């Protein structure tokens, strides 16, 4: 009984979330942080990128950003992304809209999860709700 009790206690500990948290911290310490990366359309065309997660450059390629207007005059953008790695990747994207002066006009309240097979292309599209939204900032993370 005396040997059983400590074993039982250890069993409880193994199933407890504190142990998992330690593992999570260990994993995060061993790998670079999965930071958010940005691609922003420019008024003159094309886009600028801000890569905060160095690993993403070897995995996800941002091929193009297209900007157009809907019939009602609202801005619509499309970003072409490609999984350039040899492994399946899951990308998470979200959009923010900026006015011509750079102020944020709209923000998407969620991440869109998109699994991408090796070599696969995907196009993510967003349409502004407000007429003042001129440029789009794509937020991108991989997991």
């Amino acid at each position, binding site marked *: 009984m*005396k040997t059983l*009790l*400590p074993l039982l*206690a*250890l069993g*409880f*500990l193994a199933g*407890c*979330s*504190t142990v998992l*948290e330690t593992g999570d911290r260990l994993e995060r310490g061993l790998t670079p942080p999965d930071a958010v990366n940005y691609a922003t359309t420019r008024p003159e065309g094309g886009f600028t990128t801000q890569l905060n997660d160095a690993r993403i450059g070897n995995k996800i390629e941002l091929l193009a950003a297209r900007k157009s207007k*809907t*019939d*009602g005059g*609202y801005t*619509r953008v499309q970003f072409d992304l490609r999984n350039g790695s040899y492994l399946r990747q*899951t990308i*998470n994207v979200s959009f923010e809209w900026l006015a011509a002066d750079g102020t944020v006009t*709209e923000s*998407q*309240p*969620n*991440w*869109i*999860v998109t699994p991408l097979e090796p070599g696969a292309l995907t196009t993510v*599209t*967003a*349409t502004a*709700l*407000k007429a003042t939204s001129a440029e789009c900032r794509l937020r991108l*993370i991989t*997991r």
Partner: protein
Amino acid sequence: MNKLFLLACAVFIVGCGTPATYKDPQGRELVVSLDKVNIQDFATAGSQMLQSMISSPSFSNGAPVLRLGTITNDTADNFDTSLLLSKITVPLVNAGRVTLLDNEPAADASARPKAEYVLKGKILEDRSNAGSTRQSSFVFQLTLVEVKRGVAVWTDEKIVTKQGTKNAVGF
């Protein structure tokens, strides 16, 4: 010594567990449940359907008058369907893209505009498992009906699928 060891084990057990903390409801560290629709699932389905809806010709100009129809919850989970609808109506109303009719009767009924469109839909679920791996799919269906002609002018379906052996945190 044995008593001390047992006491130490007991202290560990009592101290174990994660204290509750506040999380960003738009963030990446939310609980993902296999057996229910999570708050982020409503946000994902709602925002994707919103994007699809505003791309339809009915929303190309002006602010059409919209009335909310019935959203049927055909899942085993009990939730308020306004969790989905609010993800669509809040951005639309605040951006001035629709005129949303209130459910309450107007003080001056003659001043109340007539609904041009009705938004209605259904939420369904499908569950399956292989061994210990469970999979839940929640299907969000919405239809925009033009009242005058009684025809659907936009319809969309979004499926949120989750798979795993147990609930987890984050994506």
